[in-house]
């Protein structure tokens, strides 16, 4: 029986963070590769600063930059990905503020999307658009809790640790968010 090949160890987020703090750029790049899509989903769902999907790339980049600048403040109170999303929430807030000042009018989704049947896209995206609009109207805490729970599948304990609240309060925020979103989608 041939000897089993050694399994390449996948470094943990904590190990990559420590390596980055020691000056290893590839560790930072690996963290981006590992979490960028989940972050893009979170930011895209949150409305990407009122400017549409086209700017999600910029928001993702900005979130990582801020996260790496403040990496010393990450003490493992929650997962790195969850911490990233809370930073993403702050980046979004700033983007909303800028968007209000610059008044960029986003193209309608069906006009921007060049792939597939535009009509199909429009119908399929209608509910998503209404949900996205509903999310934008929610208070930030409710929106973040809802997305971290419903979209990212996190436990209330993890959400509470990331957002600096209690699991009970996070649960209440989630239920308020669900109630308001249902009213808006009805």
């Amino acid at each position, binding site marked *: 029986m041939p000897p089993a090949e050694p399994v390449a160890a996948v470094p943990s987020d904590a190990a990559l963070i420590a390596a980055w703090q020691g000056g290893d*750029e590839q560790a*930072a*790049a*690996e963290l*981006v*590769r590992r979490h*960028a*899509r*989940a972050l*893009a*989903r*979170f*930011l*895209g*769902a*949150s409305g*990407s600063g009122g400017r549409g*999907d086209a700017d*999600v*790339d910029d928001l*993702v*980049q900005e979130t*990582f*930059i801020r996260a*790496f*600048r403040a990496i010393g403040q990450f003490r493992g109170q929650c997962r790195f990905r969850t911490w990233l999303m809370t930073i993403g929430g702050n980046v979004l807030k700033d983007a909303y503020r800028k968007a209000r000042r610059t008044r960029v009018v986003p193209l309608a989704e069906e006009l921007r*999307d060049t792939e597939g049947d535009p009509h199909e896209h429009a119908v399929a995206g209608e*509910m*998503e658009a209404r*949900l*996205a609009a509903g*999310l934008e109207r929610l208070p930030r805490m409710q929106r973040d809790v*809802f*997305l971290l729970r*419903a*979209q990212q599948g996190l436990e209330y304990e993890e959400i509470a640790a990331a957002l600096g609240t209690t699991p009970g309060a996070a649960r209440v925020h989630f239920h308020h968010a*669900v109630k308001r*979103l*249902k009213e808006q*989608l*009805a």
Partner: protein
Amino acid sequence: MNDHELEKLAQRLGARAAERLDVEATAQAVIERLRAERAAGARIGLWLPRQWLRIAAALVIVVGGGAVALRIMHTPSPTVASAPADLDGLSTDQLRQVLDGVEQSDAHVVVSVQDVSLDDLNTVELRALLESLEG
């Protein structure tokens, strides 16, 4: 819509943005920016000590020079007209006039109103100024 349907919908939200994201390009862009920030930080770190030294040296020169200049400007200039160098050629009356002049100069503090404000004068100086104005 029930809770489950709402969660499914939420999970689809942002999926298109995530699919479109060029992860590798994002990683490279982030690294480039971090590298640029570190380089800028290092440049500032090198620049600051040298510049601070120059600024400190310039301050010492300006403040020190200013203090010396002020001291020179405020040194009281002699108010007594010097006596003629050669007194041998003077008559008795002329010598008396010179002596009177010296005595008067000693008795009066000469204050120029243009040089100082009244606030800068003490009681003696104010009195001397009043006397000089009265003639």
